[in-house]
């Protein structure tokens, strides 16, 4: 048995477990938390939940914002703390990590499937840059297919959508309007 978790001695669930067991339990709890704006995705599948560790007997989770102005960060933090509290970790700390910056490439395969199942088009590969950002005066080229009928005859209605991370598309065949998670 390694060092006892000092977190909350009166909580019988975490009073006498090892750090390894505690991390497993904390990960399991943190993995249940979903994105407040895209609840079909867990924070892990979205790539926002970066790490869960034990430091000095406390659970520390690390999240990274998708966009600088993401208004969901506070809710994510509160949801993480609540889920960890219910798992027996009442003083879990949530840290924000700015580096490396979030990229849509971190959305997991399971996350991409969950987006598709919910009628949201998942992102393609994020652009890889070497040198200055190129100016793009034509609509962004993406291999997007309609989430309803599968047609690739779709048009971009706006690069900006209902949340910071989405663009808006419409299918020219079945006319379904749908969201597409942007590549960044």
């Amino acid at each position: 048995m390694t060092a006892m978790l000092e977190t909350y001695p009166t909580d019988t669930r975490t009073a006498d477990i090892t750090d390894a067991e505690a991390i497993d339990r904390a990960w399991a709890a943190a993995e249940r938390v979903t994105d407040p704006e895209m609840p079909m995705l867990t924070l892990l599948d979205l790539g926002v939940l970066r790490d869960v560790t034990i430091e000095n007997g406390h659970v520390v989770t690390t999240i990274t914002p998708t966009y600088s102005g993401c208004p969901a960060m506070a809710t994510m933090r509160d949801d993480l703390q609540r889920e960890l509290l219910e798992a027996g970790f009442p003083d879990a700390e949530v840290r924000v990590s700015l580096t490396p910056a979030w990229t849509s490439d971190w959305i997991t395969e399971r996350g991409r499937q969950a987006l598709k199942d919910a009628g949201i088009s998942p992102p393609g590969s994020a652009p890889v840059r070497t040198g200055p950002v190129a100016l793009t005066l034509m609509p962004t080229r993406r291999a997007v297919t309609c989430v309803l009928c599968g047609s690739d005859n779709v048009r971009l209605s706006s690069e900006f959508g209902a949340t910071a991370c989405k663009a808006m598309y419409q299918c020219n065949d079945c006319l379904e309007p749908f969201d597409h998670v942007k590549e960044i």
Partner: protein
Amino acid sequence: MTANNEPTIHVEHDEAGTNVDHGDHDNAYSGLLVNDANWAFGTDFEDPLAGVDTTVPDGVDAKDLGAYCLMLGDDALVFSQRISEWCSNAPDLEEDIALANIALDLLGQARLLLARAAAADPELVPELPEGSPVPDEDRLAFFRNDLGFRNVRLAEVPNGDFAEAVAKILIYSTWRLSIFERLTDSRDTVLAAIAAKGVKEMSYHRDFAGRWVVTLARGTEESKSRLVTALNGLWPLWSELFETHPVETAVAEAGIGVDPATVADEASVILDQVFAAAGIDRPERGGLAGVGVHGGKGRDGLHTEALSKLLAEMQVVAREHPEGQW
């Protein structure tokens, strides 16, 4: 309830360490929020730099770093406020949402930059009464006067029509993207991280504005004429973007900031590409003069009247209730 029927008061501490009294009454909303007491006019967000190492790098003057972050933060805050005035006023829903998204990205950048400024140099932060729950970034946003703001004057220009909006966003984001791309190499890891995030966001802003500039220029006589009028009106503020303030010289030498003069050529070339695609000429107007014998400009805290009016609207409620909580 205690024996003498006085309501029990328990004292809690909110994140700012402020004592918070809660009467022993039923509150329909209790339990909905983790943080019971929030300053009423800020965000419900925690410190945007929570858990981020804000140590100032070796060999860097913390005052210079703070002043520089304040400049960049004020640019983003004031321009965000301007663009957000478009909310519900754009020509169509898609453009309304796009402008709101751009304003939101800039507000996020402003929060990080102002929080970085406060962490680097706490003396920048306005003092408020003891126990005030207002976090540093909001003190900087809501409790400084126009003379304390260090934004370039382009950011404060009052809104015109939609052509003016896209022209202004194109100019701002072309300039800013060139600076932020270089800032990703800053020795200050916080600033570098903020810039890396901002580059991704502003690439979308610049493309959005550039496409609209081309569309309007190649649209009708009316749309082209409005666009050209807007560009001519904004052009006197272009040269100020590339003038170097002594603070910018100092941070560039220390390897944490960018001398804006060094991005002038690149930004010009990019803008000319848009003008070429749009089939319009680069405006020919001299720069707007500064104020006073020293010719002070935005980075010196000397602004156009428009900034005072913008700040009055943005700050009035917060200033009326500096300790307001909900």
